[in-house]
């Protein structure tokens, strides 16, 4: 009992939050909807009122002229109300149509404000999967908008139809109290039956829906077709391999994986949904028939004390009232369901930053006198047992160029990620001019770094916007930065890629890399870090980048990571990483002397192919 109360309380809180969210997205939506449905329902009931009034008057042969005039005046009012309704409906439609987009904006902003370590984490990945599932079944925020609309409609309909049928209670029901009691009780029973049945089926559907899109524990549960079609596990560049290696048979095998399970569950879901909707319709029609039956009988028994038109009007009104009441309960149910399907979204929007973010401003220095120190830093990636960085101590000397070399997975990139606080180390600390970097304001701290990662990405915006990260840019400086990297041949306002603007051009990997480097230069920060910046470049382009880079990085602290040891040779300070530790440090000439060292091995592995004969 207590747990049920708890669930009820939780549902209540989420529903309230959902209403608030709708209200925040469009403050005018709720009042507008109320107004619109009042107008709409009034207009409809005036129509019923007029037709039934004429019917009664005709039955008692009253004069025609005043009847016609009265009818036309009423019809005209109804027409005006109807126009108000449709006018507001159009407005509401636009709001609803773009509710997804409004919510998308909210989610995207949230995403950009999360800490990087949370983004890569398992928790967020699962949460996002849950959100996708929930949006699919609950039709997202649009579902909330539309169900709220229904609920308001039903409420107003119940109120107006009740008001219009109130006179029937005083006349018919008073005279035929026994029959009326039976009638009212059967209507109430109908409502209760209908609501509990629909509740039952609804719950069943909910469980089945979750089953279809549950976490992937069971291999047979995943319908892989969608993953293939949407290129989530197969990309368009994979086609050539599939062809050359004749992989069709294997792909066919997996295409229909999980089809059996899904067909079975979807068919079950279809049955439950069918029962759910059938219940609603059947009970509605029963209540209507009951209204006709009882009111006609009552009218007959009472010796036609009530005008014929009135009978019809009462039937329609009481029918509308019960119908709407049933629908109202149903819609509240489905709103609860929608709210439950928003639980994941709210959880996402409520995610807090898991990192400590200080407020300390970074001292602005024109002389770039910044010093970075790693002190006994150890780090392992979340969910990983092995340390990627072990007890690392290191100072970055101001204005010097430093190269980091090492095998794959030795912790080179991880070190940079720690430096720019994409992750925080578990042990030890990183200091900027003697102060722990966690204490600095993150945005200001990041102003110190320009980084080009191996897996950098560009937007399909114009080249200039990609370099400047702004809509107002300094054209000359952009061209200067691009020239330094050896980029040429394209206007800077050309979009790179066709996804944003179809007039864009497709750039080669090398050109993209050059733009990414230009972006780092444009930022003009004290530290510049390059992680394998030339992997996609050919020898000539690589040479260009490096020779230009020496020029640019003159008075900056620069760190390179490279597999190509040749490019590091000109650094005074070369650090060799192995298994998360620094194993060697020094310049090329000293490092190469020790023939047992890792550096020697790495160097000779590459150099032996280039030695001049």
């Amino acid at each position, binding site marked *: 009992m207590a747990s049920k109360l708890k669930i009820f309380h939780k549902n209540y809180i989420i529903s309230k939050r959902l209403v608030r969210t709708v209200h925040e997205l469009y403050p005018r939506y709720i009042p507008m909807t109320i107004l619109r449905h009042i107008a709409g329902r009034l207009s409809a009931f005036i129509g019923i009122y007029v037709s039934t009034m004429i019917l009664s008057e005709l039955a008692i042969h009253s004069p025609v002229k005043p009847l016609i005039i009265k009818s036309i005046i009423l019809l005209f009012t109804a027409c005006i109300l109807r126009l108000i309704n449709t006018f507001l409906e159009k407005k509401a439609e636009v709001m609803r149509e773009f509710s997804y*987009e409004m919510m998308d904006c909210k989610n995207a902003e949230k995403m950009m404000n999360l800490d990087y370590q949370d983004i890569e984490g398992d928790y967020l990945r699962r949460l996002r999967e849950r959100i996708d599932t929930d949006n699919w079944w609950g039709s997202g925020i649009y579902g909330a908008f539309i169900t709220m609309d229904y609920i308001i409609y039903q409420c107003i309909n119940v109120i107006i139809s009740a008001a219009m049928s109130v006179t029937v209670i005083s006349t018919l029901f008073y005279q035929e109290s026994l029959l009326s009691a039976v009638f009212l009780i059967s209507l109430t029973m109908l409502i209760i039956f209908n609501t509990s049945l629909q509740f039952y089926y609804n719950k069943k559907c909910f469980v089945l829906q979750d089953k279809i899109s549950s976490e992937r524990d069971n*291999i047979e549960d995943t319908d892989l077709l969608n*993953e293939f079609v949407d290129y989530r596990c197969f990309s368009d560049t994979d086609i050539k391999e599939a062809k050359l290696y004749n992989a069709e048979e294997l792909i066919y095998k997996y295409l229909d994986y999980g089809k059996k399970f899904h067909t079975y569950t979807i068919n079950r879901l279809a049955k439950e949904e069918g029962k759910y909707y059938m219940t609603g319709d059947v009970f509605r029609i029963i209540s209507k028939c009951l209204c006709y039956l009882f009111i006609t009988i009552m009218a007959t028994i009472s010796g036609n004390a009530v005008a014929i038109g009135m009978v019809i009007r009462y039937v329609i009104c009481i029918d509308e009232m019960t119908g709407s009441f049933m629908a109202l309960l149903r819609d509240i149910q489905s709103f609860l369901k929608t709210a439950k399907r928003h639980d994941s979204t709210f959880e996402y929007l409520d995610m807090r930053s898991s990192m400590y973010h200080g407020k300390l401003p970074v001292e602005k220095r024109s002389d770039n006198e910044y010093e970075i120190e790693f002190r006994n830093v150890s780090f392992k990636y979340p969910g990983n047992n092995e340390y990627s960085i072990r007890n690392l101590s290191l100072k970055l000397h101001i204005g010097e160029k430093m190269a980091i070399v090492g095998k*794959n997975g030795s912790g080179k990139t991880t070190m940079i990620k720690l430096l720019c606080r994409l992750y925080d180390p578990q042990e030890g600390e990183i200091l900027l001019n003697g102060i722990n970097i966690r204490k600095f304001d993150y945005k200001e701290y990041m102003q110190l770094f320009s980084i080009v990662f191996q897996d950098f990405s560009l937007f399909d915006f114009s080249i200039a916007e990609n370099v400047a990260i702004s809509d107002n840019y300094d054209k000359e400086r952009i061209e200067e930065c691009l020239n330094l990297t050896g980029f040429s041949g394209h206007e800077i306002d050309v979009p790179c890629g066709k996804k944003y603007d179809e007039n864009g051009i497709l750039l080669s990997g090398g050109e993209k890399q050059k733009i990414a480097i230009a972006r780092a230069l444009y930022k003009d920060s004290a530290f510049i870090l390059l992680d394998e910046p030339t992997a996609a470049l050919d020898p*000539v382009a690589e040479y260009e980048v490096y020779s230009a880079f020496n020029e640019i990085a003159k008075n900056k602290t620069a760190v390179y990571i490279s597999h190509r040891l040749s490019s590091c040779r000109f650094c005074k300070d070369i650090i060799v990483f192995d298994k998360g530790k620094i194993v060697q440090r020094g310049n090329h000439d000293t490092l190469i002397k020790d023939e047992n060292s890792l550096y020697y091995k790495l160097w000779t592995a590459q150099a032996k192919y280039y030695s001049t004969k």
Partner: protein
Amino acid sequence: MNLIHEKNYNLIRNIIYIARCSFIFDKSIVLTLLIIIPFGIIIPVSDIIFPKIVVELLTTKADVFTILLIIGSISILLTILTGVYRYMLETRESRLTFFIRYFRKKIFLKTLNCKYCISESTEFNTKREAALMVSYYSRSAVQICLHVPTLIIDIACFLLYSSILSTLNIGIMIYLIVSAIIVYMFARQETVCAEHTKEDLAKSKRKFNYVIRQCQSIQMAKDIRIYNMNGWLTIRMRKLLDDLLVIAHIRSKQGYMSQISGAVMDLIRDSIAYICLITMTIKGNIALGDFMLYFGAITGFSNWVVQIIYHIKNLRIYNIDINALRTYLDIPDETNEAEKANNLSLKNGVDIQFEHVSFRYPESSHDIIHDISFHIHSGEHIALVGLNGSGKTTLVKLMTGLYEPQKGSIYINGKDIRTLNRKQIFSAYSVVFQDFMILPATLGENIALKPEHKVDEKRAIDALIHAGLYDDFKRRGITLNSYMTHTISKKGIVLSGGEKQKMMLARALYKNAPFLVLDEPTSALDPLAEKNIYEKYQTICKEKTALFISHRLASTQFSDKIFLLKDGNIIESGTHDELYKANGEYARLYKVQSHYYNTYKEKEGNDYGF
């Protein structure tokens, strides 16, 4: 040049097409939907019959028993009809979800089965996206299945109401039809406006979606934080949303006229109907019960007209999607090509000859490969070098039959590639590309690219050992039956970039084709791993023809011959020593790259130009 022929079938033909497909997909669904049509007609008609009966019962002062009998039996009938109708409709609709799957599968298989040069083009991708629209929100194929029965119901009801009204007054009927046409005209104007703004809307929507996706992508997350793009992107996003809303408001305003005209027409209709019916009742021409029936018919009549217009309008919209679908699905499959010779013998290795081959991408204006001729003898090891964009990968795609040259001929073992069966050409090559395909299958299946029961385990393990992955996998407890990627299993294997590259090598080794092509196989590897591959290269390629593509010229030293590709043509070829001595382009490249590795002393930061 148009690669893909646009298809433009009319609505009827597409309805027949969808009907045929749905019939193949599941016979019961289509039949049920047709069977319940009569139910769909009776239920709404009861709405106007019911009041008539009640009024008649009251005016004739029937006794309670008669009332109970008549209304009771109608009620029971209606309840049953409604129950059956709704249940059937809803269950069939839900089950049609799988009809979408039917088309999605077809769409995917087309990607796999059509010619590679087509499937790679942007035109193909646009067409594919358009075809996939049938399976997204609009779900056009399903909607057609549902709309057609509803349309039949609408038309039947329209005819039924017309016949009721024709007994009353022809004038009213004419008015109803004329007003329906007027409302339709206004509604059409609305659609015309929607057509005009459609492109703007789609454009803004695409831009907006692009930005939203990028903001939320994990791929972008690092760059967004490092360059503090947060504020910039937020502003852009909001601005694009505002653009969208502006267009939407313009569109919605267009609807006012049709709404106003509809309301006015209905006002006039109701007034005329009342006046007419009242006078007729007073004159005694019709009974009170008929008054209700006729009035219901008059107001209901325009509803059916509106419904018919609405459904036809929607069907036409869905028709566009279906045409897009058929345009895409009608792209010929590769296997649809005329049967080709199947007699390529690979016993004595592979011998490749290019004769004046030129190739350009369908959407491009210049040749990427221009008038190239060369000969690779069986057993030769060739290094292909060149700058970015010189056409190295294109050459591989031509050689392997993925592309067809526009000019010139390519021969495998003396046979023109055009006369050969494509599968046979493919069987001659093992290729390691720069981008990797990992399927959500087991490790063994990923190596063999064959279903589990066809995987030769010993060969797969051998391939893993040679690629340098076996020990590491063994340590991590990975077997050939472990699933890869997170798609199927949360515990699936995820490989690093370097491991993927090795995995691709293992795949090529498993296939063991006579011609091995390696396209930059070491770009993601560290020097020691790279050296390892280089050293193995000799053993791997023994008794095979091989082509090694690399930026790193070191790879050229263990090749028999070097091709230097520039601007789509081979400008230098020969051994390393020959080319180095010739002091041409190759020598220049080599010097740039070997510069730092050389042992002579030199001051850093020196100008080392060429």
